[in-house]
């Protein structure tokens, strides 16, 4: 049967910066990328939602603390509670933690400065909708760019919720955790930017392993519903 193009929404908050790049990357990986405005109280018909990087509402308070109160986040929380796929990158990760959709919190980098560079990551789990295209233990190269990416996990975070670890010191994250999923593995957050690593001309294409996994998973959900 024909393989449908999955519809993946990308939320734009005022102050979102990587929303255009995320829409472009998802479209390049054969998804129908759908812009979603922060003031919407309901999501359109979607197979997955992405919260992109940036400084939502300026992030003059704790990062993501205001965005989690925006109208669209109620709809995103309901979508996740129904088992919908939600990916948060950088500021999106911070918002998902603030909203309680992911465990833990992100605070200022140990260096207290913003850091932008390529980092090596180790894939800890391939049995998630976001990493199914990766091999176990695979090394991915992707850029980070953040001032508040030091991940603090809750005391009893199960190992199986840790999906990506840094292969080198980056920001002081506990146990070098770079990306986590929720208990049901349908919500993921990560600090590195897969959308900036889908074209070898721009440095690396390893981010496509993550985003193509998401597109695959969204497509199989679209097929299951159809």
């Amino acid at each position, binding site marked *: 049967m024909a393989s449908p193009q999955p519809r993946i929404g990308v939320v734009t908050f005022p102050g979102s*910066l*990587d929303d*255009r790049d995320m829409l472009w990357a998802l479209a390049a990986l054969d998804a129908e990328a759908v812009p979603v405005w922060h003031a919407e109280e309901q999501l359109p018909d979607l197979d997955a939602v992405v919260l992109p990087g940036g400084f939502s509402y300026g*992030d003059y308070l704790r990062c993501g603390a205001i965005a989690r109160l925006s109208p669209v986040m109620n709809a995103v929380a309901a979508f996740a509670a129904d088992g919908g796929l939600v990916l948060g990158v950088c500021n999106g990760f911070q918002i998902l933690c603030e909203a309680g959709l992911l465990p833990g919190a992100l605070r200022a980098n140990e260096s207290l*400065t913003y850091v*932008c560079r390529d980092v090596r990551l180790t894939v800890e789990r391939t049995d998630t909708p976001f990493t199914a295209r990766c091999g176990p233990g695979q090394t991915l190269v992707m850029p980070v760019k953040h001032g508040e990416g030091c991940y603090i996990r809750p005391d009893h975070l199960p190992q199986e919720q840790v999906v990506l670890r840094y292969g080198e010191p980056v920001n002081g994250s506990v146990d070098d955790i770079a990306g986590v999923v929720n208990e049901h593995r349908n919500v993921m957050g990560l600090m590195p930017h897969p959308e900036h690593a889908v074209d070898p001309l721009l440095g690396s294409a390893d981010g496509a392993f993550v985003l193509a996994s998401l597109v695959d998973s969204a497509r199989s959900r679209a097929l299951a519903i159809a």
Partner: protein
Amino acid sequence: MESHNHPSAVEPFQGAATGVGGILRDIVAMGARPVALLDGLWFGAPDGHFRRAVAGIGHYGNSTGIPTVGGAAVFDEAYRDNCLVNAMCVGLLPSDRVQSAKASGAGNLVVLFGATTGRDGIGGASVLASQELGEDDGDKRPTVQVGDPFTGKKLIEVSVELVESGLVESLQDCGAAGLASSLAEMASEFGIDVRLDRVPLREAGMEPWEIMISESQERMVAIVRPQMLDAVQAVCARWELPCTAIGEVTKSALLRALYEGDVVGEIPARFLTDECPRYEIERTPRDEWPQPSPRAEPVDKRWIFEQYDYLVGSRTVRRPGLDAAVLRLRPSLRGVAVSLNGPAAGERDPFRAGASAVLRAARNVACAGGEPLALTDCLNFGNPEKPEIGWELEQAIEGIAQAAEALRVPVVSGNVSLYNETDGRPIPPTPVVGCVGLVPDVRFVPSRWRSGDAVLLAVAPEDSLAAEAALIRFLWKAAPLLSLAHDVGAGGLAHALAEAAGWSGGLEADVDLPDEPRRGAAVLAIAPSQVTRLGSKGFVQIGQVP
């Protein structure tokens, strides 16, 4: 390019941050979307003051989603009390959509949108920027504006959307001297009546003159046809930005300020722009500068640009760190190479500073595979009322002009920053130049050398501007064949080779170090089989990569 030197000397974080915000709005006022920022930093030392300026640049650039892809950082004792922060921005727009900055059509509305207006930055351009610095600088801190990059980001989105939708007749940003200067520039042909009581204020009790010259950041002025006002306000409302009609275009050729119906100020607008008073400055050659301190060792600049987001926008093919950055003009495979350059530490000769800034900026672009297309400059000098500073200014301009003519590349924009003196001690002449070049195919940008490559040295054949221009032409034409090209900068040949090795993942070349080149020069690497395609002139082989 724009300077924010005095504010950065007094308060480096906000001074540098609002410098970035200002140059972004200049590009947005043309109806263009900004795609790259570069910064020129001349400081006494990489100290705490410098680190605060770097953090301020990152604060604004990173939060507005415009990549900071390059620049220069030069440390010289002479800038200790009077640092320089120059910011350059490159924007993209279809050439048939260049936005006018002039008011037209009597009866059209003058619309102010963006942040509210307060008492911050009152006198910034006059009290701070146009006087020498001295002991009471701490008292001037309130004249430095405070940046709000979140509002700046929304302002960019609103402005680009207004222009793309054809809703505005012209746009102007509110920079130095606030409404007074932006309205005077807009009113130079028609006239403008501005009703200052309509300007949304962030504090009560402001006097009309304060409203007129407030330098509150993140504000733009648009000329809007009356029937478009609702649509303009709808765009602003979507981005939650205040938007108010504060006046109208008239046929009077006057800039008139009204407050609650009374005329509180009136002047023929052309007296503030094209027909402003001009004076000839005296020029006396300077005998000699105090002997500069020994040249500082080149420092690794990675810790600077790693604090900037240089990736947002998904265009950055060649990242900051070596010569020029390259941005892809997606979906095309063409790209632009961008660089910023100025005098090295210890340089005191104004003509040579101007000419070499142009040549190095162009050579950096050529090393990244770009054919230089256009130059912009920022002239940072001491008090021009002193005859020897007037002479330096004239000499530096002459140096820039002669080098640009040799390259046959136009200087399309610019900025001056004068009165850079503290307690009577001026900065050295500091002409800073930005260059933009066209890369025909970003897949063939020189990147890093590989094992087996021949290492070549290309040097300008003789000591003349024409020879320097010939070297630059050779470099950008050869670039698609090269695996690496790197300008030999102020640090010398050995340092350039070390930088090339660092850029190539630490792979070092075996080189017989020749005499230090005294003219423009670049290190090249190329697969041995390709060397003959470069012709036979203009370079010598000095080694190879094992």
